[in-house]
């Protein structure tokens, strides 16, 4: 996007309205958080929260802190590790189930029975099973994204217009050809959507796992933004909690955008029309 177009968009009426609402919100937050200080009366809920100005001060301090960025790095690593594993196993599994009715019949019911169990419920079992804490976090992260990706691949494959396949068959395509040239590309948009959604879930799980497994202790595991938030809470620096929250939000947004951009590169035909 050219600079002039960007500034057009930034100052468009829609953007200004959005910014306006956010500013109003910030002001209310500030007033509410400082209520005890300013009015002698503490507003419920908001009154206990650190005010945005303090949060911003804390954040500017953290930007120079190596430990803060190290947390980012660790979390990103876990997210992409688990996510890649989920794609590597989930996409082929989804495609096999989409193409072969018997495989679907055998695997899908078991898959569906296990799916409602929240990934976090697997944490203890995972810790018991895997030798290192890192691996157990990775497994739970993997589970989170895995279900979403498989469901989206299946959905995408199911909605392929049968006539594409019939057209290919009438032109003499083999089963492998059909798979490679029709099923695979036609399912790509759903894979991209599934991945973007799966990415969000992956972040949820990583943060949860980092907070629950406490972090810090055994062999290199621990750290990450989830742990950062938890230790900020335990250590009493409440402004950092909020810094951590928004940091993760931004990190999650960046990851999803990355996936969408990457996905866009693989599906150029969606840009037409």
């Amino acid at each position: 996007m050219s600079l002039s177009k960007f500034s057009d968009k930034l100052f468009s009426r829609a953007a200004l309205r959005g910014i306006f609402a956010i500013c109003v919100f910030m002001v209310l937050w500030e007033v509410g958080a400082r209520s005890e200080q300013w009015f002698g009366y503490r507003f419920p809920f908001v009154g206990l929260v650190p005010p945005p100005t303090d949060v911003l001060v804390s954040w500017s301090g953290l930007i120079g802190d190596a430990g803060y960025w190290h947390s980012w790095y660790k979390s990103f690593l876990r997210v992409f590790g688990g996510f890649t594993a989920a794609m590597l196993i989930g996409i082929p599994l989804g495609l096999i189930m989409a193409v072969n009715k018997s495989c679907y019949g055998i695997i899908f019911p078991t898959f569906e029975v296990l799916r409602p169990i929240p990934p976090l419920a697997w944490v203890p079992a995972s810790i018991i099973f895997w030798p290192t804490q890192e691996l157990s976090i990775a497994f739970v992260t993997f589970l989170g994204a895995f279900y979403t990706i498989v469901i989206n691949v299946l959905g995408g494959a199911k909605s392929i217009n049968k006539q594409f396949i019939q057209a290919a068959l009438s032109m003499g395509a083999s089963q492998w050809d059909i798979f490679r040239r029709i099923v695979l590309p036609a399912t790509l948009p759903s894979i991209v959507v599934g991945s973007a959604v799966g990415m969000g879930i992956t972040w949820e799980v990583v943060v949860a796992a980092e907070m629950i497994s406490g972090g810090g202790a055994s062999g290199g595991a621990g750290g990450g933004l989830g742990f950062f938030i938890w230790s900020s809470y335990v250590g009493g620096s409440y402004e950092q909690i909020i810094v951590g929250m928004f940091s993760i939000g931004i990190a999650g947004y960046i990851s999803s955008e990355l996936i969408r951009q990457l996905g866009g590169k693989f599906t150029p035909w969606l840009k037409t029309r």
Partner: protein
Amino acid sequence: MPDPANKSEILSALKSAMPFQMVPDNLMQEIAAICTQESYEAGEKIYDLGALADDVFIVSSGSVQHILSADTDASKHEKIMRSGDVFGWAAVLEGQSVRLAATTSIEPTQVLRINGKKLVELFESDPAVGDVVMTRFATMINKEFYVPRSIADQVPGFKQALKASNLQGSEVTTMALTVYRIATWLKSPRPYLMLIGFAVFLGFWMLSVEIWKLPRFVSMPGPTEVFTEWFSEDPYYGLSFYTPEYYKHIGISLRRIGFAFLLATALGVPLGLFLGWSQKFREYIFPLFEVFRPIPILAWVPLAIIMFVGSETPVIFLTFLASFFATTLNTMLGVESIDESYSRAAKCLGASRWQTFIHVVIPGSMPYIFTGLQISIGVAWFSLVAGEMVSGQFGLGYIINTAYMMIEYPKIIIGMITLGVIGYVTSAMVRMMGDYLMQWRVRELALGDN
């Protein structure tokens, strides 16, 4: 029995006749099976006044002259029948055994012939559909042949059959459909493949833990251990189908989910509807919403603990938050997905903006809202478990966590499975609620010729 090449001709001739236009496919096939095709030359007599009235006719192509007897009380006695028109309907009238008209083909004509008795029998086997078709027969006879209602009223009805089976219109559809679906499912290979899958999974679990005792699996509880514990009257770790604690924890988790989910729906659906409907509102509020949405729910835990008193409220707050974001977003997307033609049509017909909102936007987004609600309840369980594991007391997440810490491993698995089952059931309940509220969609998917 007509051969396959003619079957499609027969079916399309049937479908062009007004009374048969609403018949579902399976019944249509059966009707087609009792049809025969016949050809007549120009000027050939098809039947005479007073002849035996056994068959109903549908004109496939050509034209037929239909002359009602002068005795019949009709406002018009002569009529020309063309493709898609139905005649010879005396064959379906109750207590009418002879022809009321004489028919002759005007030009070379092809007709479909259906035995009246067999047709009525077919409809008796499916009274809901039969009733509709027969009503249409009556309407057609009344309108097209200009005879008084007294004759049209002799068309047999199936309301008696419907009442006898104690089912009303829509119930016939949903229940009969469910029974039909279950029967079909049982006849397919699907349930058996499913059992194979389960067997493989359970088998692997059992083999790896109990029989082969693979190294990694040593500390894991095996299926025998888990299931004996779960079903025992005096469980070793204190939790099974027979202990009241089990139900207490389930109840507490359910109560939290119920409260959080309902609150999230009550707030999220209206918010989503307005975000979707009003561009102005969306421009103000959506960016603010999007600032908070990417923040993982668990990242709110410390803040929730700070803001709210006690250990119960933070857990419910977290669950609510997760549900709220999912519901609002999906509702908004739902409104945006409604076809523009509907609101345009409403405008043309004179509806105000508010009326369009009530009559078009809300019903139109219902399917999307319910999909969103199913996602929302899944997300709610996710957050609830996390919240319970971290800061709650009681509840299924709490059980799993403490069982882990107290090294009561079979309880972990029991907790997990229970979560899975209850999660599935609550999701299914949401879906059924949706089906109930959107009868039009159920029937559209079942019967329509989209």
